[in-house]
Each structure stands twice: as C-alpha cells, then as structure tokens.
C-alpha cells in the first residue's frame, strides 16, 4: 500500500508533483487563474500503525496578475465538522462538577492556518473573518440555545484544541516557495484528527485583501481491519458485541487449557 509514512515514497510523490506543476506552468499562464491548488496525495489511510500523517499541499500563484507587487499566501485546512459541547465545571457540595455547557453547531475537528507571515500583519480581522483565516477569525456558530453565551467558552474550546495540536497556526516554515510561483504548504494531522474529508483553502492576499482563492480536498479513511471493526461496531452492534464476548471466552478457555498442561 502506498502510505505517507514511508519517506522514500513521499519524496517520490513530491518529485512527480513538482514535475507536473512545472510542466503545467506554461499552460496555466494562459488562463486567468490567480492561484491554483493541489495535494501531493489525496487519499490517506489509517492502518494499525497509524500515528498521524504529514500532508503536503502545492499551490501556484501568477505574479503577473498581481502586477508583480509583493503578495502573501495563506492556506487553511479544516477536518471533519462536528457539533461540540464545551462544559464548564463549577463547585457543587465541595466537588468540581460539570455545571454549564454551550454547544457549538459546526466545529472542525482539525483546523490549521498556514501563512507566509503572521496573519494579523497580512490582513485586517474583518477581511480574515470573511474567510475564516486564523484562529481569531474562525467563526464557530453556536446552536439556538447558546446565543449570548460568554466568550470564555469559545476561548476554552480554542485553547483545548490548540493544546491537542488540533488547532494550529503556523507562519514561519509551513509555506515554502520554489521560485516565484510554486509553493508548498505542509501540515501534520495528529492521530486524533480522525478519519473524514479535509478541505484546504488557498488564498493569495495583497494590500490586506484576498485577491484569489482555490480549493483542494484530502480524504483520510480507515482501511483493512480498522475499517472492518469500526463499520461492524456501527452497522451490526449486537453481532459485534457477541463477537467481543466470543473472543474473550475463547481467550479465557484457551488460556486455562494451556496452563493446565504446563
């Protein structure tokens, strides 16, 4: 299986991709696309040894369409969106118990904002909010009941996600240019990011404004035994439970046979 964890494979992929991009460069120049996006690998697989994966995304910018003036590039990557409840503990009879909760409708389980410079230096907050560019600009809609909830719940959510490396902001080395047009954005998906569809939005910014954008997708799937077990657990829960019991009974019975002889 072609897996991202094998370095030789990864380098091979990158070389192939570089070739493709450089080759296409001439053809792309005739179209009015300001920015284009792609991934070195669109499918990643979770097998038993999976411990997160690094992903490489490629983009190309046409400086001629930006009047050859300085510009910036930013890439956001967002993973499977879920409803998330944030709980705040309070004192109750001397114990700390979950007392208040706020539910956010759609929170990406993984979010990364990669950029060539600190985002706040690239564009003002208002412009970035329109594109969810940066953790301070990420819109996290509340559910109906949560309207007017204190800001501390959103701050806590972002803080917890950051400490789990599930929310990331990186403006130093994540984006590397090869020449004037082609660039690579790299991010690490920690194992807790989980399977699902990931969307990468590419932005080119100039004078504090988004001038153009492009999108690429990456899919992370369980494969083999991981996929079979989790689909059995969800699809045939009773049978799955019986299987768990039978396996354990066999292990226990087998062990007594072995140790009786010994």
């Amino acid at each position, binding site marked *: 299986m072609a897996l991202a964890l094998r370095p030789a494979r990864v380098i091979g992929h990158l070389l192939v991709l570089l070739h493709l991009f450089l080759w296409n460069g001439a053809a792309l120049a005739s179209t009015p696309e300001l920015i284009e996006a792609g991934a070195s690998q669109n499918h990643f697989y*979770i*097998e*038993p*040894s*999976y*411990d997160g994966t690094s992903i490489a995304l490629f983009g190309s910018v046409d400086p001629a369409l930006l009047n050859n003036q300085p510009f910036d590039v930013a890439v956001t990557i967002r993973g*499977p969106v*879920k*409803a*998330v*409840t*944030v*709980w*705040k*503990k309070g004192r109750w009879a*001397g*114990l*700390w*118990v*979950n007392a208040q*909760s706020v539910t956010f409708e759609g*929170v990406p*389980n993984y979010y990364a904002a990669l950029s060539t410079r600190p985002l706040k230096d690239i564009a003002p907050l208002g412009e970035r909010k329109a594109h969810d560019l940066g953790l301070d600009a990420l819109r996290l809609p509340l559910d109906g009941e949560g309207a007017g909830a204190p800001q501390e*719940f959103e701050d*806590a*959510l972002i*803080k*917890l*996600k950051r400490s789990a490396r599930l929310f990331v902001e990186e403006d130093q080395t994540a984006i590397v240019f090869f020449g004037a047009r082609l660039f690579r954005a790299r991010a690490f998906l920690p*194992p*807790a990011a*989980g*399977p*699902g569809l990931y969307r990468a939005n590419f932005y080119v910014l100039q004078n504090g404004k988004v001038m153009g954008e492009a999108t690429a997708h990456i899919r992370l799937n*369980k494969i083999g*035994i*991981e*996929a079979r*077990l*989790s689909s059995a*657990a*969800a699809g045939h*829960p*009773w049978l*799955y*439970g*019986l*299987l*768990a*019991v039978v*396996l*354990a*009974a066999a*292990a*226990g*019975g087998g*062990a*007594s046979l072995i*140790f009786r002889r010994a």
Partner: protein
Amino acid sequence: MLVYLPIAEQPVNALVMLALGGAVGFLSGMFGVGGGFLMTPMLIFAGVPSAVAVATGANPLIASSITGTIAQYRRRNVDIKLGLYLLAGGAGGALAGVQIVKVLRQIGQIDLAVALLYVVFMSAVGGMMLIESVRALRKVRQGQPSGPRRAHHNWIQGLPLKTRFKTSKLYISTIPAITLGALVGLMSGVMGVGGGFIIVPILIYFLRVPTNVAIGTSLFQVIFVSAITTVLQAATNQTVDIALALMLMAGGVFGAQAGAAAGQHLRAEQLRLLLAILVLSVGLRLVVSLLAPPEIFSVTSAGA
C-alpha cells in the same frame, strides 16, 4: 509500539496496554477478583476516552474470570446455585446500568457519576477490608485463630424465601442474593466492572459464605455479568473497542497465572490488607481529581 484503536480513534502504546492487562490480571489472580475496578480507571489515566474505557473494561474480564472460574471449580469453590441467584438480579441490573450511562452522557455527568461511585464503593470496601485484615493480622500475632468472625444471627437470617446452598453450607433467603446481584449488575453497566471487589466482601461478611467459595462464586457470576455488559455496551453505546480488549486480555491471561502463583506465598490476611491498600489508593486518586481538577473546561462531541 503504537497501535491505532479503531473505535477509540486514537493510537495507544501496545506494550503499555499489555503491561496494564498483565498487572490487572496479576492482581485478579492473586486476590480472586476480576480486576475491573482497576482496569477502567487505569485506562482513563492512560488517556483512553472514558466512554471507551467503561464499555471496554468489562470485555477482558470475561477471559480472566473464565480462567479463574475453571481453576476454582476444580477446587469445588463455585456455588453454582448461589451464582445463578446473583445472576438473576445481575442481568436486570446491567440492563438498567447501560441505559443510565446513556442518559448520564447526554447530561454531561458521566465522569462525575463514575468517579463518585468508585470513590464511595472503594472507600467503603477498602476501609472495611483494611480494618478487618489489620485485626486478623493482630490476632495471628497474638496466637489466636484468624479469619472473619462468624456471628450466629444477623438481620439477613430473618428474611423469608429461604433455600439451601450446599456448596456454601448455608440455609438463607434468596432475597439478599438477588438484590446483591442487581446492585452489582447496575455497577457493572455504569462503571465497566464485574463487581467482584464488592461482591466478595459482601458474600463473606454479610451472607457468611466461606471465603474460598465467595471468590469462586463471584468469578462465576462475573463471567456472565461482564458478557451481558459487553453486549449491551456494544449495542447501546457502540464504544467497545475489540482491538483494545484483545491487548488487555493477552497480558491478562499470563498475569493471572503469575498472580495466582504469587498469591500462594502470602497469608490470606496479608492478601486482604494489600488489596485494601490498593483499593483505597485508587479511590484517593479519584477524590483528588474531584476536589482539584486540572482543567475547568472540557469538550465532548456528538458522535462522528
């Protein structure tokens, strides 16, 4: 060596899980309890999500309690009739327990409920065993006969619906056996434990079942309670992780044999004292987390 768990959706260190299974198995072989009361909190300390830890905790107990029951049965220490009465209550209790977990998770109090139950039961059982075993050890030192004192009468002897339990050499009511079974089944569903650490002392101290028979009978009923709990958890919460359970079992079956061998070198009172200290220290660790949580905020997500 990291292994990605398909249901927990995170990697764990397989060697750590083998060692954890082995350590719990060692204790269960030594003390004759299933070890679930240690397994579930240890899994949570190791970073396994609590929903998966509670649901999966009961699964490896099936393996270790089958091994234990077979060994005890050969020594005629299993009172099958008493075990069946315990089970009659246990099945109903487990069914209710799994439903309670579902509700508790929705209102965000599952961690609190599990921690509180552990603290209450562990301090009660641990404290009782500590006092009793220290007394017994003192008596041994003074040259008196050891073992828990057997009173001729208590209120349990006055209950109706009496029946004879041959292996336990008892003629008592079936009501306490069924009630005790239901209580343990309920705990098994909520806490992911087989309940041996509760059932053994109650059988010994309240029903006056001989210690060896209490251990053997408890192991017998733990097989079925943990099997029922595993199936119900899989069906209701879909959080049983077979990959995790297999790692724990692989360590557990070897640990149980080593523990049983080690247990023969220690006196019964010393074993009970050690178990009491162990139970109390796990309980204490949980009290600390309730009194001084490391983080005020926590996050739960509504499924995939």
